[in-house]
């Protein structure tokens, strides 16, 4: 962010999403909205219990689903007016950015989704913090790499032990 270009909520924080991206989003949201309405209609009405059916569990989610579908149609119409049907798609993000994001997401899922609950929490956390730091600092070049790896291992181990001690012993919380 350069000087004087800090985002304003009134003008949108960043450049608006491309019309094509909006169109695809609208299609996905429309499908979601319709699916919610369909599921809501399929819910039991409990007319015998309530006498009127006005407490049917599907009423509220059905309303939400209908609104999501309706608003996504408006989003699609707006995207079309902005040229969403044109051949050019959303601007591709820089390769490095995408790779960094994919690595961060993959490590996060591997840690929270796979390791936590199967491996002792302190060990899983130590390994995750080490892997995360080491991976992202690898590109800094071979100079000082060994030192950085040792530091990453120390941070990982420190985090694992400190979090376990603080949460389990001090605040008496259960950890996964």
């Amino acid at each position, binding site marked *: 962010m350069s*000087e*004087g270009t*800090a*985002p*304003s*909520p*009134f*003008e949108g924080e*960043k450049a608006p*999403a491309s019309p094509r991206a*909006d169109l695809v989003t609208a299609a996905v*949201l429309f499908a979601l909205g319709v699916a919610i309405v369909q*599921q809501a209609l399929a*819910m*039991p009405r*409990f007319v015998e219990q309530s006498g*009127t059916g*006005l*407490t049917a*569990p*599907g*009423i*509220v*989610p059905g309303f939400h*689903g209908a*609104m*999501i579908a309706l*608003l*996504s149609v*408006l*989003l699609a119409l707006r995207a079309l007016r902005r040229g969403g049907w044109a051949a050019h798609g959303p601007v591709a993000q820089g390769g490095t950015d995408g790779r*960094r*994001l994919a*690595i*961060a*997401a993959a*490590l*996060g*899922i591997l*840690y*929270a*989704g796979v390791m*936590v*609950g199967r491996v002792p929490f302190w060990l899983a956390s130590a390994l*995750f913090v080490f892997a*995360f*730091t080491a991976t*992202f*600092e690898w590109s800094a070049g071979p100079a000082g790499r060994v030192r950085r790896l040792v530091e990453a291992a120390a941070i*990982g181990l420190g*985090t*694992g032990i400190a*979090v376990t001690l603080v*949460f389990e012993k001090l*605040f*008496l*919380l*259960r*950890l*996964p």
Partner: protein
Amino acid sequence: MTDALSMLAGGFGHVFAGGAAFHALWAVLIGIVIGALPGLTATMGVALLTTLTFGMGPNVAMLVLVCVYVGAIYGGSRSAILLNIPGTPASAASTLDGFPLARQGLAGRAMGISTAGSWLGTLFGTLILALFAPSFGEFALQFGSYEMFWVAMFGIVIAGSLSGGDPLKGYIAGFIGLFVASIGQETNHAYARFAYGNGDLAGGLGLLPVLVGVFGVAEVLSSMRGPAVKAVSSKIDSVIPRIGDITAYWRTIFRSGAIGTFIGAMPGLGEDIAAWSSYAAAKRASAEREKFGKGSVEGLMAAETGESACVPGAIIPVLTLAVPGSAPAAVLMAAMMIHGLNPGPMLAITSPEFIYQIVAMLIVADMVKLFYGLVLVKPLLWILLIPRERLMPVVFVLCTVGAFAITSRLFDIWVMLGAGLVGFVLRELRFPMAPLVLGIVLGDLLDKNLLRGLVLSGGDLTPFFTRPISMGLCALTLVAVAWSIPGFGALFRRRQAAMPK
């Protein structure tokens, strides 16, 4: 009046009985550090600290969370001034004049202005809370199911209209939030909606895991994706606020305090809008308009006062209507519920003293914030230099603990991951997060009151539109929707422009 004063004294007594000074000192410090670090927001801070408060008594827990909230909103200005990067979204307006001041070698003075503005802003907002929340709470007792339905709708609409650049996406985000809240067993027949036989889904998606995902995991991903923050070394002059800066701009301070508190009290808008609105109002009214954006003391003062006044403002609807005024206030409200405090209209009857306890907590937090503003400058500079490659994995570990701790279910960690990934994608597609959060928080309120209203009226929709307060809230909601329709807004603005001055 005497009652109010004695309850306020009681509030202070209650807060100090829990070891307020000690807890306020560490909690505000954590808040300031969280706020100062780019990528860690006040919402995330309050959500993560909620985990730590499970084992505490309700009064200590609330004090800790209020202190983190107050500290984080203030802390954001450190990185805004020194790095030109808002530590929290609320501090974005502070970069406009804070960073130019720092570049002119006046970083210390800028931080002094920020400290003074923020301190006075929170104090002003707290005063308004103390004055109006009890009577508004009593007024809110007249709200029945029909009115509460409209309060929830108004919250979604106003947050959708104003919290991002795009009202349409704001509304969609709000309804997605409402849908998420409808997953799990409903109250009338205990029917598990969208559960498909899964016991975990039948229990519903926990508010805290979803919030930690949307604000924690998504922030970690966003932060790792973007370019690295380059720290600038800056020599810092005296950070003691100058009395002259305060007396010269007392009008700006009052105006920004009032705007900040008002915007805070509107459901779902939050500190960033408060800061921008205060900044815009100060610029319009200023005699030295040309200095704005180039290092204006008045501009920085307005933004800081506005954002900090918003904090008590955002707590007003939490206490009186159980509707949060901002995203961190939403988490604070969730924490109140976890600790067995029932925010909402009944609070004025069941425990009117709680409002004054919150006032006392805000004042304690504000004083500690002032203390740190004066002494905590150099250590914060070191913290700002922690590389994200080392900070973000630790934050992620804390998010995981935060999501798990409340119910000890691995399912909640999956919910956090899912919410984080979906939140990240929605953010990339420019969907604002505030209406989403508000939708999740208000979902239950809307659900219960819509169905209860329908049952009470025998399926007749007219009471939703004809009861006096309902009618007013409905009109406000419709005006908010109309305002966001491009044609309507433009029409009004053209008329306004055509009006003779």
